[in-house]
């Protein structure tokens, strides 16, 4: 049995009387694509923050990449990758400068930085754009670049917060090709999305409702469980009864 990359036990976060995350327990394994779904306000972002070492839980246990979230949040940050939809790359730096910057921040050696930057640019086919400012790249390319930069230091796990919002269907699939590649190399991919078909691309899914995890299984099993034809129906079934709709 392989060691779980994430292990949580009754993880909870309270803000005063408000329980944002309510005793969630789950595990994820190396090379797994884990979909973290839920309506706005269900507690996804808060949960992710705790797992990234950005916020200390109120109670419960959690380890990420082998480190306890209470005691070693800094070590966790060194061993994970993170990509959010709102920001990932600096618009006024070039492609190469962005790659070098993040590689440097993640602590790669000078030689590694050179090697990996070149490899990344080749893999994405950005040779002609290496010296272009990121601001001039189309959205799809930005997202693909951001993802590759997020895993340039070969972390055990990468957190993706709605990475494909607003991107055209072809680029979305190219993005998922990159996710599959990473997973094949043993990186655990922890992704949230509003696209229900992307839920199908995951190995397992959890759906948060009102701070709790109300369902967690493979897409196929969830559909059986809720007698649904699609993940859309499963989600609708669960989220519809949610009491909480405030962000």
């Amino acid at each position: 049995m392989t060691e779980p990359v994430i292990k949580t036990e009754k993880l909870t976060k309270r803000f005063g009387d408000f329980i944002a995350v309510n005793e969630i327990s789950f595990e994820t394994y190396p090379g797994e694509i884990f979909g973290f779904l839920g309506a706005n306000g269900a507690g996804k972002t808060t949960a992710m923050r705790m797992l990234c070492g950005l916020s200390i839980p109120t109670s419960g246990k959690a380890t990420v990449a082998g480190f306890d979230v209470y005691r070693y949040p800094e070590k966790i940050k060194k061993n994970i990758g993170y990509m959010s939809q709102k920001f990932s790359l600096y618009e006024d730096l070039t492609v190469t400068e962005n790659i070098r910057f993040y590689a440097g921040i993640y602590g790669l050696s000078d030689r590694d930085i050179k090697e990996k930057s070149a490899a990344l640019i080749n893999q994405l086919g950005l040779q002609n754009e290496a010296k272009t400012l990121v601001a001039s790249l189309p959205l799809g390319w930005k997202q693909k670049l951001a993802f590759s930069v997020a895993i340039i230091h070969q972390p055990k796990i990468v957190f993706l917060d709605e990475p494909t919002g607003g991107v055209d269907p072809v680029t979305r699939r190219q993005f998922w090709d990159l996710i599959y590649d990473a997973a094949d190399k043993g990186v655990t991919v922890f992704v949230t999305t509003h696209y229900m078909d992307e839920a199908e691309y995951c190995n397992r899914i959890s759906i948060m409702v009102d701070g709790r995890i109300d369902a967690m299984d493979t897409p196929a099993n969830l559909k059986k469980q809720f007698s649904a034809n699609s993940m859309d129906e499963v989600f609708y079934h669960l989220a519809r009864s949610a009491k909480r709709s405030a962000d």
Partner: protein
Amino acid sequence: MDAIVLSNIIKTYNKGTVKAVNDVSLSVSKAELFGLIGPDGAGKTSIFRVLTTLLLADSGTATVDGYDVVKDYKAIRGCIGYMPGRFSLYQDLTVEENINFFATLFGTTLQENYELVKDIYIQIEPFKHRRAGQLSGGMKQKLALCCALIHKPTVLFLDEPTTGVDAVSRKEFWEMLKRLKEQGITIMVSTPYMDEATLCDRIALIQEGKILSVDTPEKITEAYPGQLYALKAGATSKLLKDARAYPAIEDVYAFGEYLHMAFKDNKNDSQGLLKYLHGKGHADAEIKEVKPTIEDCFIRLLKQ
């Protein structure tokens, strides 16, 4: 008379280097629910801004409710409702204050047009003393919709109203739009979500400033060239790689729990494919014929 008409609209930015809208022509009938479907950067917002008289196109003409967007912009501004891309109401005013402000701006009151917005307003009424900035994403959209409707516009422009909103709230929103349409309001909506396309009367697929196709969702899917198949097996990622390598396949891509694929020259080689896949270790592979969705059509049109 059509409610909205665009003729050969071209709009560029940055001294002509960025062609946001590239010779777009289309028309929308009265009381039609029209969807502008395309990813970010396709030109949807620019088209909206030209129609709501906020931007001048480089060339081409456009009319809204018969009024020219350049010459009669004042008339247009008095009779349309507009919900721009991000939440653009006053975060530090309450729900009630926002609605009253916009009602007064248009020379009306909430009471006057209450029937029109009742369905939506009822959902946010319990929060009417809460500051708009503290509402959830779904509530904000509902508030913004109320404020856009408060003066009984004849044409409603909604720029990506469901972006970033979860699946359940999105469904609710579209149901509200259908009911509005029944009241005779022409509605033009833009969205990057392909699955919302089927909820419209007619749609335009747009990418990089160009219209790929304009028609009813049914006709667009019917126009899909050839037959589409769905392929399924246990290990999706490996299946994708193997299927791509098979020579008789024109195109194959992931689509939820299936792979969608088309054969070259529409020559059905299902048997050969299955044999090949079994050989590659996909013992449980199955193929079936499926009807294409809007997303499949979009992908096909993009690749042309």
